[in-house]
C-alpha cells in the first residue's frame, strides 16, 4: 500500500491578541510526526487543547483563526503541501483532501439546498458534470442510509435532523472522491442513539470507497471502533502512537491508561432513607404558545444526601423538568413538594428560604458567571444575599468554600476568563454551596468538559455530598456519568419517565426497548463493538 499522508516534525503556532495587552505568539503543536497509508484510518485523540483539530486541518494546510503552521513537512501523495502556493492549495482542498466538521448544522450554508452544497466541490474543481455529481451524491446518500436519497438533496439544511446532516456532510466530503478525509469530531454533537448509526455509516463509507481518513475525537471508545491506528495527544505532544488494538488493550503510557480506564468508575448506590427532600408528583408542563406537553405526568422522589440522575437524549424534557422545579416554567398540573412543603408554581411567589435551599449548576460555567466579577465576588454574593455576611466574615467563608472545591486562595482575585473549564465549574459549585442548599440541580455539568476533568468534578461532587449531605438532581445524557454518581435513575423519553428506580435495578435486565437502545448505544472500549451491536440490532429487527 502506498503512502498517502506523511507528517514530519509538524509545528503549529498561534498569534494571540488578548483584549488587554500586547499580542504574542505561542506554539500549540510541538513537532508531531505520523504516517497514513491509503485506505487506512488514523485516530487522533486527546483533550481540548491537545492540538488534534489543528493537526487535522494541517492536512489541508489550513489554520483556523490566528493559527499558523510554523515548521515541519506535510506530504500528500509525496509532495509537501506546506510549500504549495494558495492556488495549488485550492486545487487540493475539496478535491484531494476534504473535511467533515463537528457541527454540520453550522457548517452548511443555510441559504442553499443540500445538493448544491454537496456537489459544489465537484463542479468547482471541474471533476464532472452537474448531473454526474448529483448521481454520485445520490449513491452516497443511499450508502449512508439517508431517507429518500433521491430527493433529500432538494431540502435546505434546517429541514433535516442533526444526525442526517452529519451524514450529508460525510457525503459532501466523499463526493469529489478524495484520497483523504479529515473527520473532526463528527459524532460528538449527536445523541448516543444517533451517534451509533452515523458512526456505522461513516465506517462503511470509508471501507467501501477505500479512502484514507484522519479521525479526530476526544472519545477513545468511539475512535476504537473506526481506526486502524491511534495517536494520543496531550498539549501538542504525542503521548503514544500505535495500533488500535495495542492502545486499547495494552496502553504503555500512564496518560493513555487514565483515558482507557475512565469509564470504569462506579459509585456504590445508597439505600432509600427517610422522607424524600424532593417529591415530584404527576407534573405536566408545556411552553407558552405550544399545544404539546414537554413533560407528561412525571413523578419522582429524591432522598436527602442522595443523587437522582435524569437520563435522556436531547428533547426528552430533562432540562424542562429542572425549569419546572425551579419555578421558571410553571407546571400545568401536578405537585412539587420540597422538604415537606409545597412549592409554588412560579418563582416570584417563592420565599427566600425556598430559593436558598434549591440551587442550580449549569452546563456552561463560563456564561453562568459575570465575566467582570472576580471569583471572590462571585462566591461572596450568595453569602451576602442569603446570610448577610460582610467583610472578614464573608472572606473567611469564601476561603472555606475555596478549600472545599480544592482551589487555592490565589484564585480569589482572578476573573472567570483566567480559569480553565474545570476550574470555572468548580467555582459554580462553590457558589451553589455557599447558599447551604438542601438540593442542587446539576444540568449537564460535566458535558462540556474533557473526560479526565469531568471525572474530577464528579469525584468532587460525591465528596461534597458526603460532607454536606446535599442532594443532587443530576441531569445528563451520558450513561457513563450516571453510573459513577447516581443512587436512583429516571430515564426520560419524549417527556415521559420510561424507567425509574434504584440504579442497580434500572441498569439490569430485563430492559424496556428504549433503555435497551440507550444502554447498548454507549460506545465500549473494545474493537469490534460497533459491528456486534449493528449485527445484533439487524438480527432483532429481522426476528420481529
Amino acid at each position, binding site marked *: 500500500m502506498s503512502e498517502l499522508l506523511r507528517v514530519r516534525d509538524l509545528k503549529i503556532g498561534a498569534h494571540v491578541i488578548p483584549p488587554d495587552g500586547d499580542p504574542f505568539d505561542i506554539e500549540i503543536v510541538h513537532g508531531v510526526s505520523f504516517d497514513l497509508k491509503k485506505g487506512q484510518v488514523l485516530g487522533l485523540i486527546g483533550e481540548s487543547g491537545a492540538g488534534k483539530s489543528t493537526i487535522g486541518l494541517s492536512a489541508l494546510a489550513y489554520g483556523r483563526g490566528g493559527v499558523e503552521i510554523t515548521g515541519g513537512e506535510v506530504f500528500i501523495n509525496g509532495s509537501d503541501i506546506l510549500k504549495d502556493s494558495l492556488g495549488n492549495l485550492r486545487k487540493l482542498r*475539496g478535491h484531494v483532501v476534504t473535511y467533515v466538521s463537528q457541527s454540520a448544522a453550522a*457548517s452548511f450554508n443555510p441559504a442553499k439546498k443540500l445538493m448544491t452544497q454537496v456537489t459544489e466541490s465537484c463542479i468547482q474543481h471541474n471533476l464532472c458534470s452537474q448531473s454526474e455529481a448529483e448521481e454520485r451524491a445520490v449513491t452516497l446518500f443511499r450508502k449512508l442510509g439517508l431517507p429518500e436519497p433521491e430527493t433529500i438533496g432538494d431540502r*435546505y439544511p434546517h429541514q433535516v435532523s442533526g444526525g442526517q446532516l452529519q451524514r450529508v456532510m460525510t457525503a459532501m466530503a466523499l463526493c469529489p472522491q478524495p484520497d483523504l478525509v479529515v473527520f473532526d469530531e463528527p459524532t460528538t454533537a449527536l445523541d448516543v442513539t444517533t451517534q451509533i448509526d452515523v458512526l456505522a455509516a461513516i465506517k462503511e463509507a470509508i471501507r467501501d470507497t477505500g479512502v484514507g481518513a484522519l479521525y479526530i475525537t476526544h472519545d477513545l471508545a468511539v475512535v476504537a471502533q473506526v481506526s486502524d491506528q491511534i495517536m494520543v495527544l496531550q498539549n501538542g505532544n504525542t503521548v503514544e502512537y500505535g495500533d488500535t488494538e495495542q492502545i486499547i488493550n495494552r496502553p504503555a503510557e500512564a496518560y493513555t491508561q487514565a483515558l482507557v480506564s475512565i469509564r470504569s468508575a462506579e459509585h456504590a448506590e445508597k439505600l432509600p432513607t427517610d422522607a424524600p427532600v424532593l417529591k415530584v408528583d404527576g407534573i405536566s408542563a408545556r411552553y407558552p404558545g405550544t399545544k404539546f406537553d414537554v413533560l407528561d405526568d412525571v413523578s419522582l422522589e429524591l432522598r436527602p444526601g442522595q443523587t437522582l440522575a435524569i437520563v435522556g437524549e436531547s428533547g426528552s424534557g430533562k432540562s424542562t423538568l429542572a425549569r419546572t422545579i425551579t419555578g421558571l416554567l410553571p407546571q400545568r398540573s401536578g405537585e412539587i413538594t420540597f422538604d415537606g412543603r409545597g412549592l409554588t408554581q412560579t418563582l416570584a411567589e417563592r420565599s427566600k428560604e425556598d430559593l436558598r435551599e434549591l440551587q442550580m449548576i449549569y452546563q456552561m460555567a463560563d456564561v453562568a458567571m459575570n465575566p467582570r466579577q472576580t471569583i471572590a465576588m462571585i462566591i461572596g454574593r450568595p453569602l451576602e444575599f442569603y446570610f448577610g455576611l460582610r467583610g472578614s466574615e464573608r472572606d473567611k467563608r469564601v476561603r472555606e468554600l475555596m478549600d472545599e472545591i480544592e482551589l487555592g486562595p490565589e484564585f480569589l482575585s482572578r476573573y472567570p476568563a483566567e480559569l480553565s473549564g474545570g476550574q470555572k465549574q468548580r467555582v459554580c459549585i462553590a457558589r451553589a454551596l455557599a447558599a447551604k442548599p438542601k438540593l442542587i440541580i446539576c444540568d449537564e455539568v460535566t458535558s462540556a468538559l474533557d473526560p479526565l476533568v469531568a471525572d474530577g468534578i464528579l469525584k468532587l461532587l460525591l465528596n461534597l455530598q458526603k460532607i454536606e449531605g446535599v442532594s443532587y438532581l443530576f441531569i445528563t445524557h451520558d450513561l457513563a456519568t450516571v453510573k459513577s454518581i447516581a443512587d436512583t435513575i429516571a430515564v426520560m423519553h419524549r417527556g415521559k419517565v420510561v424507567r425509574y428506580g434504584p440504579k442497580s435495578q434500572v441498569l439490569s435486565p430485563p430492559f424496556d426497548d428504549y433503555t435497551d437502545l440507550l444502554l447498548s448505544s454507549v460506545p465500549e472500549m473494545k474493537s469490534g463493538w460497533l459491528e456486534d451491536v449493528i449485527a445484533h440490532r439487524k438480527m432483532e429487527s429481522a426476528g420481529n
Partner: protein
Amino acid sequence: MSFVVIKLVSQRIALGLLLLLAATVLIFIGTQILPGDVAQSILGQSATPEALANLRRDLGLNEPALNRYFSWLGNALQGDLGTALTNGKDIAESISGRLQNTLFLAACAAVVSIPLAIFLGLLAVRYRNRWPDKMISAITLATISVPEFILGYIVMYFVAVKLQWLPSVAIVRPDMSVFDRFEAVAMPVIVLTFVVLAHMMRMTRAAILNVMESAYIETAELKGLSAFRIIASHAMPNAISPIVNVVMLNLAYLVVGVVVVEVVFVYPGMGQYLVDHVSKRDVPVVQATGLIFAAVYILLNTTADIIAILANPRLRHPK
C-alpha cells in the same frame, strides 16, 4: 410558497396600510396646528373681516376638523388631492409631472449607486484591512461627509464649467427625448450617488463580514473555492436582509430628501414644489406632498421587510 410566508407577508402589508393611515392623521393634525390663518395669508393684511369670513366658509374651514379630515381622506383615496390655495390649480395635475421627474432622478441614481455600492462592499470584504478596503472607505466616507450642496457645486464646477461637458442646470421639459433627459440628470445623479454610496457600501461590508465569521464560510474555504466565489455565493445570500434595509432607506431618501440637490441644479422635482408651497402656507399642497412622501417611505420599507421574509429559507421552506 408556504403558508407561513403568505401569512407574514400579508401581515406586513396590512401593517404598512395601517401605518399609512396613521401617517395621514399625523399629516392632517400637523397642518392644522401650523400657525397663522390660510384665509388671512391669501387675502393679505388689508382684507375686511367679511371677506375673510366668506373665504373661510368657501374653503370649508368652519367645518369640524374630523369632518374635514374624512372628506380630505376620502377625496385623496379617489385620487383627488384638492386644489392649491395659491394658484387654484388642481394639485394632482401639477404634482404628477414633478413626481415623475423626481422618480426618474431617483431611479437613475438608484440604478447607478446600488450595484456600485454592493460591488464596492464586496470588494472591500475581499481585500479587508488592505489598501483597496481602506481607500473605498476613505473616499465614500469623504463624499458623505461633504454637504450635498457643496458637492453639487464642485461637480458643477468641474463638469459644467471646466470641462463644459454638460449644462450647469438640470432642467427637464415634458417634450424632451429620453436621451436628453439622461443628459440633464447626469450631474444630480453623480451628486446623489456620492451621498448614498457610503451608507450602503459600509452596510454591505459589515453585513458580509459578519457572515464571514460563520462556520459554513470555513467549509467553503476548505472546499478550495476562490475568495470571490465564497463572498458572492456563500456570504452574500445570508447578508441580504440588512443590506436591503439600508438600500430601501436610501431609496426613500432619493425620493423625498433630494430638495437641496434639486434647488442646486434647478431640477423641477417634488422637493422644490413642496418647499415653495410650505413658504406660502398652502395647506392642501403640503398635505398632498406629505401624503405621497409618507406613502413612498412606507412602501419601500414594507418592501424591504417582505424581501427579508422571502430571503429567509427557514420561512420559505418550513420543516
